[in-house]
């Protein structure tokens, strides 16, 4: 069965610290990978996505993620976080042989202290 694991449930950082959130997915062939963010009181919105090409993907608000096929990973990074990055972050995957069924990880709640 398709599954996505996010290693950290809660992360607390100070402003300007670097961020890396882990994401691993189960093997299932060719994948498309996504990071979504949910700011407090808001709906889920896309941060970035990977479907082919350069494995280093840049998204909005200074976020980036690297697809490492051999590790089945798609970790999210940001060199310097801001208080406004406080949110919940979800990794998600679709498999090309599974009709774009979007499967989410459990989420990581990030709190950035000012």
């Amino acid at each position, binding site marked *: 069965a398709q599954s996505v694991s996010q290693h950290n449930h809660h992360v607390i950082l100070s402003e300007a610290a670097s961020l890396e959130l882990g994401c691993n997915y189960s093997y299932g062939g060719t994948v498309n990978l996504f990071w979504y963010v949910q700011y407090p009181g808001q*709906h889920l919105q896309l941060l970035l996505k990977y*479907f082919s090409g350069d494995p280093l993907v840049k998204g909005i608000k200074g976020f980036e993620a690297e697809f490492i096929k051999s590790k089945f990973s798609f970790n999210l990074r940001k060199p310097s976080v801001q208080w406004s990055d406080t949110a919940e972050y979800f990794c998600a995957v679709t498999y090309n042989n599974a*009709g*774009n069924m979007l499967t*989410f990880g459990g989420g990581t709640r990030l709190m950035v202290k000012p």
Partner: protein
Amino acid sequence: EAGVAQSPRYKIIEKRQSVAFWCNPISGHATLYWYQQILGQGPKLLIQFQNNGVVDDSQLPKDRFSAERLKGVDSTLKIQPAKLEDSAVYLCASSLAGGAPEAFFGQGTRLTVV
């Protein structure tokens, strides 16, 4: 561009009652998803439609949950009868068909079963 519309935003019902949620996807989006997000967890796919056909409903508790998308546009999700464990946020999302489409999410309906 109008986003995904969901109603109601909040609903409180007693166990064993029935409830229905409505979703209007972004115009032109063939794929529609319903997710259940229990507090502290990632969204879990309940059902995925492509136009008015079901692509996947393997995680839909069919003894109490039903969903339809009769004209391939808006959709309703029903729970009958509700249980305490159905308390969650019900998210609707839509996307274009094919490729690696981004799913756009609505604000969700927060259901509390008492």
